[in-house]
Structures are given as C-alpha cells and as structure tokens.
C-alpha cells in the first residue's frame, strides 16, 4: 500500500497522540510533542499545492460499514483550516513547554493529560477537516466535540462545570446534525458529497428549510452563534493557558468549516437565498446574516463587562466569529475573502492575546482585571505583544485584522446592506472599547505593590508570542500571502474569487493596498517622532509621580482606575443585554427539571395496574374503532 500525503499527515498526527499518551509524563515530553507538531506542519506543507492550486488528495483509508462508504480527503478548504490548526497547535504547545509546564505541575495539574488532550484535539480536527462525505464529517464532528470536552474539563472545578455545559450544547448540536444527516440520506440515498449536491436540487423547500435550520443550528452551536453562545466563553477561558490559546484560535472555527462545506459547498448560497421566510421580505440568508451580526454585537458588549482577562478574550472570540460568518453569507468576492481571511487573522491575534494573558498569569498569578495594572514597566515585551494583538482584534491598521474587516465592510456596502454594515460597525466600536479596558487594566496605570518584582515572561513563552506578533504584522502588511490560499478555498466551495495583490485586493468599487497604507501610516509616525524628538521638551517621570483630582499622590497611595470600568456606559446600555440569552437556557433547564420530576412521580406514585388497564382500553379502542 502506498501512503498518500494525507495518510502521512494523519499517521504523523496519530503518532503524536501516541507519543503524548506514552511518554507524556516525561520531562522532555512537551518539546517532543512540539517537534512532532512541527513535523505535521511540514507534512502539511508538502501538500501546499492544495493551498495554491486546488485539487484534492485522497487518503487510502476507506471503509464500508453497514452499506455506507467512509472516505477521507483533503482539498484547499481542508488545507487552509489544517494550516491554522497545526500552526496554532505548534505555537501553543511550544508556549506550554518549559516554564509554564513546570508551574502547571507544581500547581497540581496533570501535564500528561494536557498533552494528550491537545494531541487528541489536533488529531480529531485533522480527521474532521479530511472528511470526504457527510458521514465521515459527522464522525469527525463528534470526535472533535468530545476531544474538546476533554481539554476543557481537565482543569477541574469551574472548568468541569463549564465543560459539562459545553457538552450538553455540543450534544444538542451533534444531534441536530445527525437528524439533518438522516434527512439528507432519505432524500439522496447516499451520503457522498456528489450525491448530496444533485439531491439538493430536487429537495422540497420545506425540507431544505429544515435542513438549513438543523445544519446551521448544529454547526452554529460550535461557532457560538446566537443564541447558542452561552457555553463558549467560560469553557474556553477556564482551559489551562496554552489550551485556551489553541481553542480560542481554531476550535470554534470547525463549525465554520462545516458550514462552508455543507451550507455553502453542498447546498449552495443560491439555494439558501431562495428560501423565503413566509409572510416577510427576508430569506434564510438574511436570517443567517442577522444572526451573525447579533453574534458580533451581543458577545462583544458582554466582553466589555468581564473582569477576567481570559473571559474577556473568550467573549470576543464569539463576537469575531460573527464577522467570519457575515462575510461568508454575503458571499460576494470580497465578503467571502474577508470572512475566510478573518479566520486566519483571528487565529493569530487571539492566540497571541491568550498567550500574553497567560504570561501575565504566570508571573502575577491572576487574570483579574481589577487586581492588575502598570505592568508595562515590568513586562514590556508582553505589553508589545498584547498591543499588537488588540490592534488586530479591534481591526485597526497596520495589523491583519484591519484587512479582513475592511473586506467584510466593503462587501456589505457593495451589496447594499447598510443596516448590517451599521450593526457591524457598532460591534467594532464595542471591540475597541473593551480591548482598551484589557490593555489599560493590565499594563497601564500604576504598578501594584505586590507586582513590583515581577519579571518579563520567560523566553520559552516569549518566542511563540513574538512569532505570532510577527505574523500578525506581516500578514497585515502583505495580506496577499493568505489571500492566495483563500482564493483556492473560495474556488473550492464555489464562491467568487477576488482579484488580490500582495498588498491587498483590487476591485472597481475600491481597492486596498496595505503596503501603501502602512507606508503612509509609518511615514506619519515618523513625522510625529521627528517633531517629538526635535522639540526635546519631554521629560521622563516615574510611574508613581502622578496626581489625581488636583492633588499629588504620595508614593504609598497607588492609584488605578480599573474597578467598574466603563461604569457610565454600562449605566446607559448595560440593561439592554443583561444576561443576554441566559433566560432561554434557564427556562429550558427548569422545564426539563420540572418534566423530569413529573416523570419520576409518574413512576413512583404508580398504580401500575390502572396504567395497564387504561392502556389496554385506549389502545384496543383506538385500534379497533
């Protein structure tokens, strides 16, 4: 048997899992696993032709079970997502090696379980990305869900609770997909992709609606699409540091991958566009777009309320997912490219941000935004990384987040969707406000007494963070690099492809060249710097040399405006989204609770013979009459 390139990759990934399982307890295990991730990434680059030219590479692995063919293959779409997966796995794992690992063990963590869970997540994600038919897609889907559960639950305590909540949501999503799968099968008689594409043409509108709801809802749960987003932030945030960097970067993008594969590639945006909501002017696609926009706004503003850095970032992760979906649902050349580019960009800055926060936790022991401040003087490099990260997250030049958001906005305007555009801009506003809270409360202001002797993060953590920062900047400068892969992805899923250059995109309605933008920006910085330094009027003061309310503060009074940040804003708008959809979750839970009580009563208070008698009566009466 000749191994295809895909076989090699999956085999490599499996070996990584085995290594983590067997020697995960050893001292060098972390480095070993990291190197193996690097190996996987190399194996992936051997398939780079997929990313640049398209095409597919099949795995020689294939089964026939119960009359169903199961096969796996990679195309541009899989390759693109696999690249992000492996990249974030490599860097997160690298980050976890050495200093962080020792600290984790010291605090009673099980490092073997951590490495195994990470390797398992990567392995299952690759299997999901490689799915060649709907059945293998579902298998991969469930595997990813349960692997994610393992990684989320392993911290114990609050994390387990969050993971339990996650798995209930994930099961609900999985079952929705399962039901959709069954409906597709009954319509097409096969779960092979080609058969499904032909079957979709003949399917009735009602059934297609049902399918879109089942698949969209099922996959949407994993993405944290409203109103199924409640699980995500606590589950990601409570995962051990590098794990949350990895999950935040890629995990919920698996939902987007599945949506791209099923809703966009198999069903086709056109078909979804034809599904009208009865008695209204909107259709299923508009519905998805509005859901995406709501997913941008609500979680972003919820993030603003968070007092824990990790939770704040995790809530943003949900919100940013909305941009990706929005871009893809708009489905013109710029929108699709913007959505997909945002997947890549988000992975880079989200991982960098989680790592920076983890580095802060490593040094100070807390991620509570009310208990930090002024760390810029002690951890300047981490500050730089966080700054680069939040610029990316907020979507400002010169970082990569700007490009993808610009593309999405542009496409919204081009397609004449001003309301959606407005809503998306409101979301960005919230992002900027809350990331300012993040960097201010951690790094700005005055240093707290207990943090006076904090040192910069160790190099084992710093290097992956710096690498990520470099990627954020470089792809911001030259978005043409990822756009080249994205062009093949768009082609694969059947969306229009934009005209891209190294510095951005070209179109009749407006082009973007980041090299120019950044050049101008830096020129502006340069002029500013020239003025600043040539004037020579600045003086360096100590952090504590400060005054407030017209009074100089003595050195023993530390002053940090961090508690109840944005109090005024919250007073104005906080009431609008209090608890967001918690009431929905609560009411479902208490309804099940209530029904469950009733059912138990049914069994306990049973007059069994009466049940028998009445059943016999009704059943016979019903059947006979």
């Amino acid at each position, binding site marked *: 048997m000749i191994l295809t390139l895909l076989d090699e990759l999956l085999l490599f990934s499996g070996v990584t899992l085995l290594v983590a399982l067997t020697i995960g307890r050893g001292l060098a295990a972390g480095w070993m696993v990291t190197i193996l991730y690097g190996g996987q990434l190399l194996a992936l680059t051997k398939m780079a032709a997929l990313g640049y030219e398209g095409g597919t590479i099949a795995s020689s692995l294939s089964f026939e079970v*119960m009359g169903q063919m199961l096969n796996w293959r990679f195309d541009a779409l899989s390759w693109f997502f696999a690249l992000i997966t492996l990249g974030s796995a490599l860097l997160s794992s690298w980050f976890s090696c050495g200093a962080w690992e020792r600290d984790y063990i010291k605090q009673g963590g099980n490092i073997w379980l951590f490495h195994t869970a990470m390797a398992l997540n990567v392995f299952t994600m690759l299997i999901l990305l490689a799915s060649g038919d709907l059945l293998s897609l579902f298998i991969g889907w*469930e*595997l990813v869900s349960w692997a994610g559960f393992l990684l989320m639950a392993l911290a114990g305590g609050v994390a387990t609770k969050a993971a339990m909540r996650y798995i209930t949501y994930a099961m609900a999503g999985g079952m929705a997909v*399962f039901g959709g799968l*069954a409906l597709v099968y009954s319509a097409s008689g096969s779960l092979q992709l080609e058969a499904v594409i032909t079957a979709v043409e003949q399917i009735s509108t009602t059934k297609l609606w049902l399918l879109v709801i089942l698949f969209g809802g099922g996959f949407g749960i994993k993405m944290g699409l409203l109103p199924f987003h409640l699980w995500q932030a606590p589950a990601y945030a409570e995962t051990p540091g590098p794990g949350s960097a990895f999950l935040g970067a890629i995990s919920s993008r698996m939902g987007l991958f599945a949506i791209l594969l099923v809703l966009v590639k198999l069903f086709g945006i056109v078909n979804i566009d034809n599904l009208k909501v009865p008695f209204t002017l909107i259709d299923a696609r508009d519905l998805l777009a509005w859901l995406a926009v709501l997913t941008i706004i609500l979680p972003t503003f919820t993030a603003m309320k968070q007092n824990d850095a990790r939770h704040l970032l995790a809530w943003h992760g949900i919100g940013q997912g909305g941009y990706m979906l929005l871009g893809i649902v708009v489905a013109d050349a710029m929108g699709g490219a913007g959505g997909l580019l945002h997947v890549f960009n988000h992975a880079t800055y989200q991982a960098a941000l989680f790592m920076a926060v983890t580095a802060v936790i490593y040094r100070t022991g807390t991620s509570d935004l009310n208990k930090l401040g002024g760390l810029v003087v002690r951890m300047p490099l981490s500050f730089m990384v966080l700054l680069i990260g939040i610029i990316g997250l907020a979507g400002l030049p010169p970082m990569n987040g700007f490009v993808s958001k610009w593309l999405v906005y542009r496409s919204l305007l081009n397609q004449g969707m001003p309301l959606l555009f407005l809503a998306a801009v409101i979301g960005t506003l919230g992002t900027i406000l809350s990331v300012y809270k993040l960097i201010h409360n951690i790094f700005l202001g005055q240093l707290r007494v207990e943090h006076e002797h904090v040192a910069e993060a160790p190099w084992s953590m710093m290097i992956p963070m710096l690498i990520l920062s470099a990627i954020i900047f470089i792809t911001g400068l030259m978005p043409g690099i990822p756009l080249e892969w994205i062009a093949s992805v768009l082609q694969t899923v059947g969306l229009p492809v934009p005209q891209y250059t190294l510095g951005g995109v070209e179109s009749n309605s407006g082009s973007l060249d980041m090299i120019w933008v950044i050049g101008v920006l830096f020129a502006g910085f340069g002029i500013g710097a020239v003025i600043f330094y040539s004037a020579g009027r600045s003086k360096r003061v100590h952090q504590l040399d400060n005054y407030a309310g017209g009074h100089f503060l003595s050195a023993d009074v530390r002053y940090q405006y961090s508690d109840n940040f944005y109090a005024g804003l919250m007073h104005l708008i906080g009431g609008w989204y209090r608890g967001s959809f918690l009431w929905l979750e609560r009411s479902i839970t208490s309804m099940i609770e209530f029904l469950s009580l009733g059912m138990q009563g*049914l069994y*306990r208070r*049973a007059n069994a013979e009466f049940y028998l008698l009445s059943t016999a009566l009704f059943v*016979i009466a019903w*059947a006979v009459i």
Partner: protein
Amino acid sequence: MNAYLVLTIALPLLGAFLLPILMRSSIAIALWSGPAILIYGCWTIADIWLQGSTQPISIAIGGFAPPLGINLYIDSLALLFAFAVQLLGLIFWPFTLDQDSARRQSLMLLLVAASTGLALSGDLFNLYVFYELAAVATFGLASASGSSAAYVATLRYLILSGIGSVLTLFGIALIYSKTGTLNLAHLAQLAPAQLNDELGLTAFLSILIGIGVKAELFPVNTWVPEIYATASTRLSAFLAGLLSKLALLIILRLLLLIFHQPEAAQVLLILGILGVVSGELAAWRAKELRRMLAFSSIGQLGVMFIAMALPDGAGVLAVLALAIHHLIIKSGLFMLAEDWGGAIQRLRGSAKMAPLGAALFVLFSLSLVGMPPLPGFWAKFTLITELAGQSEPLYLIGLAVFLLATVIEASYLFRVAAILYQDAPRETLDHEIPKNEGLSLVTATLFGAGLIAAAVMIAPVGDSLNTIAVQVQDIDLYISTVNPGGSQ
C-alpha cells in the same frame, strides 16, 4: 448435531431440579454443576455456529411434526440470543455460598432455561409457558435479597405481571379460537386470511401489553425502578440486558410473522415515544446510579419499540443492533453499579481510586449516547436513517424525540462521569470512597473489551447483523423451514 440444541433447555432444568439434592450430598459438585451446564450450553451453540450453516432449522420436540407438536425454530437470531442467554447466565452466576445458594442457583438455571426457550421456541403457547417460568424465577431471585422493600417490589411486580399474563392468555385464546393453531409458522400462513381484522389486532395488543411488562413497555414498566433498586445488581443486569430483549424479540417475531396491521405498528410507535420521553426524563433527576440505569433502560427499550414500529420490517436491523448494543452496555454499567450503589454524590473521587472502572463508565456512556467510532453510533445511525425515510409525520416526531432524548441522556450520564472525576471531599477517607474491584470489575472489563472489539470490527459485525436481519424478515423461509401441515 443440531438435535442437541434441546439440551440447552433440558439440561439447565435437570440441573435446577437436582441442585438442591446435590447440595446436600456434595457441595463441590453442586457448586460446579451449574456453571458446567452453562458452559456446555455455550459450547453446543457455538459448535452449531462454527459449522457455518446459515440455513435456519426446525427441531420438532417429541418427534411430532409441527403444527401438531411444538418445534424449536433455530435461525441465526435465535442462536445468537440463546448463546447470549447461556453466556450471561454464566457471567452473572450467583457464586455466593450461603444457606440459600442452592435455591438461588436453581432459580438461576430455571431462568436460563426459560430464557433459552423464549429465544428458540416456535409455538405461541410454549412461549407463554417459558415466559411465565422466566417470570416466576425472576420473582424468586428478586426477592432473594431479603429486604422488606424487595418483597413489596416483587409482589407489585408479580401482580402486574400476573395481570399481563391474563391478557396474554386472553389474546392466545382469541387467536386459537379464530385459527385453531398455535404454531407460529402455521399462524404466519393463516394470518393474512384470518387474523387481518380487529380480532387479530386485539389479540396482538393483548399479547403486547402482557409481554410488554417484561419488555419494559410504557406504561406497564413501573416495576422497573423498584425492582432494579431492590434486587441484586446481577439480576438487574440480566433482566435489563437480556430478558427485556427476549420479550422484545417475541413481539418482533409476532409482528413480522403474523400481525401486519399498520395500527399495530402505530401503537408500538406511540408507546415507544412515550417510553423514551418518560424514561430519559425521569433518569435526568435520578439521584442513584442503579435507578438512573433503570430509567435509562426504559428509554432505550422505548427506542427499540420505535424501531420496531417501522413498516415492512425496515427496522429489524436497527432493533437488532440497538438490542445487542444495549445488552452489552447495560450489563457492563450494572456491573459497575454493583459497587457504586447509593447516592451519586457519594462517588466523588472514585476515579482516583478505581481508574479502570471510571474509564469503563465513560466508555459505556460514550457508546450509549452514540459517539461515532463506537458501535452505539452505528446502531443509532441505522435507526435514524430508516426513520427519516418515512413520510408519516409520527415517525419524524419519533426521530426528533429520539434525538432530544439523546441530548438529555448525554447530559445526565456525563454528570455522573464528572462526579467520578471530581476530587473527593476533603474529610473523606480513602476507604470510604466506593471503588469497584474484584469480579464485578472484571466482568465489566469483559463487556468493555467486547464493545471495543465490536467497534474495531464494525464492518463484519454490521454485515452479519444485516444477514441476520434479512433472514428474520423472510417469512417464507420461516414457513418453509417449519413446514406446518406439509408432510404429516
């Protein structure tokens, strides 16, 4: 030697009769005679299997050709379940040695003989007799724990089961009045002409409600939580794992061979849906593992009833797959529950004390909720693809209920798993944490290994199940094999 298959019923009965006497003379012989008989039974059945003949055969007891005499109908399905009966009888054998052990073992042998008879018999009234034998043996074993609660639970079960038997007997009387025969193959021949009316339907429904008591059919399953909470875990495992499936099997055979009315299927569907809803919801709040398993078993049986309700035998494969899967899972879970009885909250920290047990629990739970590479997924997959293909909305409701129930199931099973992996409360001493060990753990491991083996070899397992299902659906094959009224 296919004729020796009768011995799988006769020898356990013989052993049961003689055990109390043997026990008086030689304890050693008595202790080993039961397991020896069961091992012989396993071997006999495995031997037939290994001969590789897939054609069903019919054995006329007493040499009287059916329909005059009673026959055993042996196809792959019957063999499979007969084998499972003997094997599980061996696995759940009451090894404890006390003053009642002769009686207990004797009852166990009777239960095994009756269950084997249920799997093999091809005569309606004979099935009823074996059903009653299994019931009486169950009553004895259920009350053997000696607690007052067990006595009350058993009596309630007995009365319910007795009323069920009356209805079953009434149904049999109706069928005999109408057709004048009791042989299943003969009935299958006559049914399209004679039983395809209200009378036949009433007969089926009477029998269904009667036998449904054992098959945990909603709502005649109220005995389930009581009995499983008071009887020994091994008996609960046998009842939930196997006996319920045998009752199900009888209903399946009756449905396929004799009663083709769509109303019959609809009743099964509605009761199945209600069973799923009530069982899974009740399990959601259960505070004790065995009770939770009892309710979950009601839910699972409900799923099988839904599968059975599919028209034209479309659900046979799903029923088989679900039944065998549930047999393995529930037996394993009950074995784990043997040491993990009591409030679920008490189990905190158990995973540290018994890592294997906790891992097995997670494995079984994953398969039960249908995690893909595990067999449970394939069983559920066969069911939902069939359900989704039906045009009648009731089936789609069944599909939706089934999927929602799975979510609830995952939620409560993994709540337990999370408790297992929690740290023990600080004031608890190590020896206070329940951990599973010894025979029950070994047994559970056995089931776990079986599950994994099935997952690895899912393709051949699926194929052979499919072959069995096709054979079961073949009514003409059944009739021609038994050949009632052919050469008398």
